[in-house]
């Protein structure tokens, strides 16, 4: 039971700080920027998935009036991008995928830039290409990077705990299956856009929708071979991120170099087609998973092997095992684990971070297998989960220390609202072409930061003006989730003022303190704690000054609704502004500002991937009630139920918004979305053919916020930005299997795929 204190700001669904700007068209996204003399950049993409570049001839393009700069690999320093440093921003010797950047142009308008691109002549020598990671692993497969033998990326994740072989031998039931999960796209509504502008002294300002302004600053400086202090990153409003802006990508480097060469600001905006073809996707995987249990339902072991199609270059997609391992090792109690990966280069597109960062994939396979295991055990799928449910105070095989944990309550809530007991075993009684089914799935995800870098910190500065108005300068970024509003609420609560008294500044690296970045659902927790700590320091200073003014001991003072008051003599009050002005405008005056840097008490995972990387963990369950039309294969979701342990909802409407948005992404992953890639080419690069959910595809959804009041989080809050999308596909997959009486092992469950499976099952039954 959470401790429901009376808060003035926490738990209130105040409108977000930037809402009015956004509803009136005043919000400025990168593509809205207009700098004097600004040029427009366009990139020339490779025509082959794998080829040597023999010659790039830009002479004709250079002659076109309006072309101000053309760059190729020879205009770039030899440094490379990416986690494996294998991605040159412009390719000089070789192209390895159809989205490789070969040249770029800056011109007076986009039309001229496009016409100039057509005039660049590139001579290629096509090389044999490979598009399947299992083929790419074989001897004799085309070698994509000289230094990666057998197309194996150096990155390799492997984990062992307990004795899997012994546990398998002792299991009463063992199940094993292979799953295949596709490329899906973030589908940010704003196509990727950035602006680069150099001043006369060699300082670069990037207007970027990046989620990692400080790491970006460091990486960009490294690529351009200038000191990081020469780069300023300004973040305009961001039109969707979801992990797509979590790395430094070639287009931003190209933009900066075009600006440097032309001597003018350059804007580089993708078309929607480029957004589909040339930005990273969610990591596709092939998974072999084996699980066992005792007949009483105790989980015995998990043995999991993930093959990652790394694509041509390495971005964050290759590092998702770091996070998906949590679902393998820590979702429900299982004490014998083996986990291994193969991360394989192919001539396909490469993947980046996408909401959930591998956890949607990990959760899908674990939670689908839990249902399959339950079936084989002859046990109810809910009972199996409750039997092995995570508990507060538990330490998991990876060393994750679970503090608060609302998983049991989430499971029971969802089951109740799905009418589990009545509806779970209805299939036998059904007739007609429409079959009904229900299913559920849970998740565990970092909820108190994630120490994936040496620092998981965020800085905050809280400053008060002479009238008691507060400015919070936070290292974190507002990427559209509304987190900055939550931070304002936290700051206001700590200080004893109102949310509307707080302005948040968070979009300029020249002003704001360091933060590692917006990822891992960490912002409310980490930036919130930093804001709270800074606010507490300022508050202490106010109380110290007010003690003098009110002639009351400091320990008797507090602030409520903008007024300092004495607890023992409540009629003694002073408005904050007055306290501040008195301290400011006098001899040896002072002003009120404080900073804090909150870096949580967590550890990085060691070489064996053990370590408590987060202060606390979020949990949740989703349930799906579905109908399958067995004549067409169409799946209709009758309703979804979400129960999520959020610690405390700082702003319930914003939290719901995150869960609802995540849900729609999860529904897309389950039923609709797939990048169709043939020989390295994306053949559905449009909103017409890539089926992102529309309003009509959203079912009724019930959301229950479970508040476990986490002691580590600001006013009890835990992160939940990714929660809404992690277990969705698994819940729907379990519901479809419940309806059909057999299992599908690939996503998305589009009608044709479902119908094929139904027919195959009919043929099997004879």
């Amino acid at each position: 039971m959470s401790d429901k204190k009376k808060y003035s700001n926490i738990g209130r669904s105040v409108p977000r700080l930037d809402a009015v700007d956004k509803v009136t068209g005043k919000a400025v996204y990168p593509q809205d920027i207009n700098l004097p003399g600004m040029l427009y950049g366009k990139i020339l993409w490779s025509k082959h998935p794998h080829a040597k570049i023999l010659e790039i001839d830009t002479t004709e393009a250079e002659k076109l009036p309006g072309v101000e700069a053309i760059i190729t690999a020879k205009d770039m320093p030899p440094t490379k991008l990416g986690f494996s440093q294998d991605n040159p921003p412009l390719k000089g010797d070789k192209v390895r995928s159809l989205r490789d950047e070969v040249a770029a142009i800056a011109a007076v308008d986009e039309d001229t830039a496009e016409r100039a691109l057509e005039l660049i002549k590139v001579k290629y020598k096509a090389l044999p290409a490979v598009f399947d990671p299992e083929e790419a692993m074989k001897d004799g497969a085309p070698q994509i990077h000289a230094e990666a033998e057998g197309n194996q990326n150096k990155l390799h994740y492997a984990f062992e705990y307990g004795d899997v072989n012994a546990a398998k031998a002792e299991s009463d039931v063992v199940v094993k299956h292979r799953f295949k999960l596709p490329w899906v796209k973030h589908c940010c509504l704003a196509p990727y856009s950035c602006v680069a502008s150099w001043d006369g002294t060699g300082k670069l300002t990037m207007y970027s929708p990046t989620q990692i302004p400080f790491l970006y600053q460091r990486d960009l400086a490294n690529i351009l071979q200038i000191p990081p202090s020469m780069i300023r990153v300004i973040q305009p409003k961001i039109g969707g991120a979801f992990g797509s802006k979590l790395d430094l990508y070639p287009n931003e480097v190209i933009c900066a170099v075009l600006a440097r060469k032309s001597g003018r600001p350059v804007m580089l905006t993708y078309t929607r087609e480029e957004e589909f073809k040339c930005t990273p996707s969610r990591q596709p995987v092939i998974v072999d998973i084996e699980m066992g249990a005792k007949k009483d339902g105790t989980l015995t072991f998990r043995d999991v092997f993930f093959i990652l199609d790394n694509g041509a270059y390495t971005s964050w997609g290759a590092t998702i095992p770091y996070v998906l391992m949590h679902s393998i090792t820590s979702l429900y109690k299982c004490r014998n684990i083996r986990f291994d990966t193969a991360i394989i280069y192919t001539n396909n597109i490469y993947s980046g971070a996408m909401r959930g960062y591998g956890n949607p994939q990990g959760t899908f396979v674990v939670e689908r297998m839990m249902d399959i295991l339950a079936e084989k055990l002859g046990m109810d799928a809910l009972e199996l989960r409750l039997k092995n449910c995570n508990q507060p105070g538990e330490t998991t095989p990876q060393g994750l220390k679970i503090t608060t944990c609302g998983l049991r309550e989430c499971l029971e809530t969802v089951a109740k609202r799905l009418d589990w007991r009545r509806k779970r075993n209805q299939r036998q009684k059904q007739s007609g072409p429409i079959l009904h089914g229900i299913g559920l799935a849970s998740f565990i995800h970092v909820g108190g930061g994630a120490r994936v870098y040496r620092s998981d910190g965020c800085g905050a500065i809280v400053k008060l003006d002479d009238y008691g108005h507060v400015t919070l300068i936070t290292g974190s970024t507002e990427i559209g989730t509304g987190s900055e509003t939550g931070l304002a609420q936290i700051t206001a609560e700590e200080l004893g003022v109102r949310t509307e008294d707080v302005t948040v500044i968070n979009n300029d690296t020249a002003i704001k303190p360091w933060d590692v970045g917006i990822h891992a659902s960490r912002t409310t927790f980490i930036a919130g704690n930093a804001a709270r700590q800074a606010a507490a320091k300022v508050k202490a200073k106010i109380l110290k000054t007010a003690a003098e003014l009110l002639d009351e001991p400091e320990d008797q003072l507090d602030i409520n609704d903008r007024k300092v008051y004495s607890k023992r003599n409540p009629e003694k009050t002073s408005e904050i502004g007055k306290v501040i002005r008195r301290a400011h405008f006098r001899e040896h005056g002072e002003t009120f500002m404080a900073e804090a840097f909150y870096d949580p008490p967590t550890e990085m995972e060691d070489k064996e991937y053990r370590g408590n990387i987060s202060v606390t963990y979020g949990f949740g369950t989703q349930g799906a009630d579905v109908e399958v039309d067995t004549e067409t294969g169409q799946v209709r979701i009758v309703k979804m139920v979400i129960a999520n342990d959020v610690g405390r909802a700082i702003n319930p409407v914003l939290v719901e918004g995150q869960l609802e948005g995540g849900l729609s992404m999860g529904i897309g992953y389950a039923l609709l979305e797939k990048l169709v890639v043939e020989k390295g080419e994306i053949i559905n690069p449009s909103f017409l053919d890539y089926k992102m959910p529309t309003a009509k595809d959203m079912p009724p959804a019930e959301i229950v916020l479970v508040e476990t009041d986490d002691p580590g989080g600001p006013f009890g809050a835990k992160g939940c930005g990714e929660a809404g999308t992690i277990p969705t596909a698994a819940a729907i997959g379990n519901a479809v299997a419940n309806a059909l009486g057999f299992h599908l092992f690939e996503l998305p469950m589009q009608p044709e795929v479902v119908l094929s499976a139904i027919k195959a099952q009919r043929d099997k039954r004879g």
Partner: protein
Amino acid sequence: MKDFEYHSPRTLEEACQLLKKYDGKARVLAGGTDLIPGMYRREIAPEQVINLKGIPGLNFIALEESKGLFLGSLVNFNEIIYSPIIEKHYPILKEVSRKIASHQIRNLATIGGNLCNAAPSADSAPVLIALDSAVTLIGPGSKERTLPLEKFFTGPGETALAPGEILVQIHIPLPKPRTGISYIKQMTRRALEIAVVGVTALVQLEKKTEKCSSIRLVIGACAPTPLRVPAAEEILIGKKITDQDIEAAAQAASEAVKPITDVRASKLYRKEMVKVQCKRALEEANSRAQASS
């Protein structure tokens, strides 16, 4: 987009003359909802674009007592949806129009444009063919001709329009009493989709005998043009329709279609869905015919 010359003629004759003059290099602009994206994607690159919306007399919805409905080719789909005349006398047109694209596109896209674009998956075509619609075309020198809509489509994206001709009017006869019409658009998502398979069934029942006196079955998205299936219709005409008849007709339709495999669906799936949806459309049309007075 490639550059082009833009014309906005004020009379039909002017438009026809321009079209004839630039035959092969010109495209007509009505709603623009197919033309503009096609040009943006560089799939089409006309050198001349001729806007028809400045020409008076092409946007009307008129009901003539005995003859039926006359639609000007520039009527847009929202005008169809919100027309009291159509709601009362041709509710199926409202139903079909609501399945097309989006509210914004329906404010622009015209019935004439939808027909002249001649996509095999066009939503308006199967129903209009089932209703025995006719189209009026006017060419240079005010030469006018009318032909059944069924004969208007000659291939994917191809029509019977001769050089310089413009579609000006669609005539839809009044459905006879006891007519039930159904249009099923099978989609993967629930909106913003081109049909995987589109099926229109029209059933007219004789009052006393309940026998089927008129039948139309038209399939979209499964052949180079919207396809009527006489082989299926023959199974049902003149009979009191049974479930077995519907099953057989659906089977015949499935055998008659020639779908392709594309990014939306495979040809095998489409063939199967034709059977499923023909059955459902015939059942619905039959129920509607029985329910109508």
